[in-house]
């Protein structure tokens, strides 16, 4: 359903900016072929009281890839995201991101390292404008430091202008420009979803964890989001996507991990996974 139609200029501008403004971003082209994994999680376990939400789950994401994570409702996908980003501390297991173990880091430091997660139920900052939601996400802002508000006002203002421009471009690409000055709390459910993705992009991360980006978004827009994900991906961003919409998974992902009842069930290319009898059984029931 998603073809690789040439994009309009906006997306390309964003991508160009990503590269020009953040040199540390790994780009597929410049990375040597047998790249080490960007994210490796092994033996992750988490139980909530009696419920074993995630049991000895592993996952691996190669740099520059779009990796899918699927599984029936309650399989533990969102919980796995929470463990990776350390919003919930794992009982056991290790997470290595970009060569460094991160399972002991607090969530905000993980985000600063370049691993950003979104939430399944979109969370926006209601009483801030859509634009402010975006600006918040920019990293290493001079004006975020109390003293710099006083000591470096001009540098801070200059950065703010640049970020604002960059944010406008991203908003444009997800179609939220008309809402930029509105309160984020006034957005519809689907628009919130879009804002959340746009906001995650604003962080300029190395890896984005998207939790059901297409849920509640209309089909045309799903296509558009997919195009942008592919576009950003070509420019070097890596994605790990939870999605129930198999069309999206099929068209986007290089590789898919299947989770069921908290355990790894299968992994492979989308086509392989789709043929796997175990996966069919898990989805369709016994």
């Amino acid at each position, binding site marked *: 359903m998603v073809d690789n139609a040439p994009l309009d200029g906006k997306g390309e501008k964003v991508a160009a900016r990503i590269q020009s403004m953040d040199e540390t971003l790994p780009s597929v082209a410049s990375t040597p072929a047998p790249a080490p994994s960007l994210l490796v999680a092994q033996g992750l376990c988490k139980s909530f009281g009696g419920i074993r939400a995630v049991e000895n789950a592993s996952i691996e994401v190669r740099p520059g890839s779009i990796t899918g994570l699927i599984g029936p409702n309650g399989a533990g996908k969102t919980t796995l995201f929470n463990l990776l980003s350390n919003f919930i501390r794992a009982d056991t297991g290790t997470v290595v991101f970009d060569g460094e173990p991160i399972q002991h880091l607090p969530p905000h430091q993980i985000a600063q390292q370049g691993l950003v997660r979104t939430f399944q139920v979109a*969370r926006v900052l209601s*009483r801030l404008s859509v634009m402010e939601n975006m600006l918040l996400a920019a990293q290493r802002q001079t004006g975020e430091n109390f003293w710099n508000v006083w000591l470096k006002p001009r540098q801070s203002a200059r950065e703010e202008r640049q970020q604002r421009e960059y944010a406008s471009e991203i908003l444009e690409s997800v179609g939220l420009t008309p809402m930029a000055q509105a309160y984020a*709390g*006034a957005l519809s459910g689907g628009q919130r979803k879009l804002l959340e993705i746009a906001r995650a992009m604003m962080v300029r991360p190395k890896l984005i964890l998207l939790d059901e980006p297409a849920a509640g978004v209309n089909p045309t827009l799903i296509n558009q989001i997919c195009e942008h994900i592919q576009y950003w991906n070509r420019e070097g961003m890596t994605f790990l996507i939870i999605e129930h919409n198999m069309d999206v998974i099929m068209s986007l992902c290089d590789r898919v991990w299947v989770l069921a009842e908290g355990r790894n069930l299968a992994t492979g290319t989308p086509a392989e996974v789709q043929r796997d009898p175990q996966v069919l059984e898990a989805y369709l029931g016994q």
Partner: protein
Amino acid sequence: MQGFIVSLVIFTSIFAIFGLGLNLQWGFTGLINFGHVAFMAVGAYATVLLSLNGVPLILAALVGGGLAALLGLLIGLSTLRLRADYLAIVTIGVSEMVRLVALNEEWLTRGSFGIQRFPLPLANFSPTLLTRLVMILLVAGVVALGYWRLWKWLRQQVKQAPQSVLTRASLAALGYLTSLSLLLYGGGVAARQLKAANVLPPWLLGVGLLGGLAAIIGLYVWLAQRMSSKMSGWSTGLLLVFTGVLALLGFWILGYALSAIYNYDSNPSKTGLMVISVLLVALTYWGLERLVNSPWGRILKAIREDEEVAKALGKNVFWYKLQSLMLGGLIAGIAGALYAWQLTTVYPDNFQPLVTFNGWTIVVLGGAGSNAGTLLGSAIFWAYQTVTRFILGDIVPLDDARLGAFRIMVIGLLLMVLMIWRPQGILGRKEELTLGR
């Protein structure tokens, strides 16, 4: 009268500063601090005790503010990692603890005897005409800036509705407010005469008064609600008239304040304190406005809205909450130093939980998350305090202690009315109420 106005300006300024600190914590960061008075107490006692031991006043006040910030750090380190409600509980506890320590550690604070005769700022200062003129210019300049901002804000409000609609609404609001004041005034005069004549038993008079007051307020709330559904631009009109009246009152007070500065020598310590307080309000307001509109302040607001999002976007939520708590504490500590200088004696009883309650009233009145609202809230609060202090005693058949309680009751009543009429506070933004989370 002049001395009285000076003291009113000082109290308004002190509580404006106090409220600004609370507004930073609650209005911008969403931290529930039910023990704000603790910071004030620490600031007041530290300033007074240090200056009694020969530390220069400015330094003493700064150290007082610093210690208050330190208290914020301690509270924050111990509770901010927990859920939000714990902070509320702990702050109540801490504020009572600070008061009880002040009451019982007599070697340090002289307990309930209180501390008297400590140095006051500018008490022996006898300014030349030129210095006085400079002071007048400074204060007038600050006030002019305030009026300019008010003007800009009003114009922005006015732009939202067509002029004819607005004129009609303003006239209606003027009639509404005038008739309300006349009714209250007439009722007051009647009650005063009744009380003086001593024909009714006090309980009957009391019940009658309360009933009458409730009836008037009820009627006018009902009227206001009808009008707001019937007449477009009604609330803007009401706001315009209301701020207009306040602005005129402000001019009147400004006149007294400036003439007090001109006659500086007639009451040096109070006049000096007034100048200091007004300038400090302006400084605090300016500083906070700058902070909350910076990326730093954006993080605080993000934490208020949803701290998980802030974390997911790489912000150190704990550290920013701590900064907010400490800065709010510092501001309240400085307010405490001014408070001590204004009271000229410091007792543990000056730092009852009621003071925190007053701070909350000020913030909620003006609209949480609006610094200008907090300034307005403080002005309204102290206008109410003074009016009732002088008038209520003549009208209400109660002794002084009960009268105090009665005044607080009426504040509660007014807050309830405000919550019905304008739940977002006077300067709060209405749109924000309808937003989903």
